[in-house]
């Protein structure tokens, strides 16, 4: 299996916020925290308005992992970027590093004190016993351990948001683009998963 990825088709997204609601409901995300949200550009401009559903993209070379001072991030075998909330100190560095604004910080006390970081887990839970109460309380639902895909993607009514094995969703998208003959741009994929020209040079190569 290839690695897990999200793909949002801006030609199909109708800004219904079904993905946001599905995520909130599935993971019982608290007030003030949005693991997923829908961003609209050129709002109200006829023909130019586009909406995109944004969350953690589980980047190949995740900047959050690079900047975390306590190294609480890890990547699973499926390429999902997760973190240990027992280690997180809520410093907010990951929020500044993330190109998608994915890390969220719940208010943990008086005077706007930041709590531990919360973000999309690709519905893969976290470092607790799978499908346990502790895992759900800290990280939300673990749908991958139930043989399911993220709730946001599976609930998307127009199938604008695809989530799962990168190869499979890329094939689905390719077929879609060939059928409609337009809208081949995949928003955020270059940033999250690297552009072809930015692939790492072979070992020993000199630039």
């Amino acid at each position, binding site marked *: 299996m290839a690695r897990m990825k999200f793909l949002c088709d801006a030609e199909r997204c109708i800004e219904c916020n079904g993905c946001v609601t599905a995520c909130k409901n599935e993971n019982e995300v608290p007030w003030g925290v949005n693991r997923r949200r829908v961003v609209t550009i050129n709002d109200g401009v006829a023909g130019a308005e586009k909406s995109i559903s944004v969350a953690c993209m589980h980047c190949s070379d995740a900047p959050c992992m690079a900047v975390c001072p306590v190294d609480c991030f890890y990547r*699973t075998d499926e390429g999902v970027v997760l973190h240990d909330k027992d*280690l997180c100190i809520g410093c907010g560095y990951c929020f500044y590093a993330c190109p998608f604004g994915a890390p969220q910080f719940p208010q943990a006390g008086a005077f706007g004190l930041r709590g531990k970081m919360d973000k999309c887990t690709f519905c893969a839970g976290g*470092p607790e016993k799978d*499908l346990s109460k502790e895992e759900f309380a800290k990280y939300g639902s673990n749908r991958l351990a*139930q043989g399911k895909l993220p709730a946001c993607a*599976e609930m998307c009514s127009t199938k604008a948001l695809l989530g799962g094995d990168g190869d499979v969703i890329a094939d689905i998208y390719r077929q879609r683009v060939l059928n409609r003959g337009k809208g081949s741009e995949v928003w955020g994929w270059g940033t999250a998963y690297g552009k072809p020209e930015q692939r790492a040079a072979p070992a020993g190569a000199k630039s």
Partner: protein
Amino acid sequence: MIDPRKLFLAGAAIALVLGLAACGERDQVTVYKQGKYQGKPDSKPWESDPGASLYTTSKWNPGDKTSWESALRMRNLAQNEYNRAE
């Protein structure tokens, strides 16, 4: 009148309890190693039993990664409405 020996023994017992109290304290400072994940290990999704949760429709053998991947692949392909429409 309190027996001075009993008083001494009681004092010694209290001192012993207070003195050993810190021995049961857990280390609360994590020693961080730069660039290495320090948290708890995570279990693999295919290790869980598909029947362990409600409403699971996918089927695989617990611990068998290949069967979990094929179950997830079926789920993945269901996102293609061209397949469903045909």
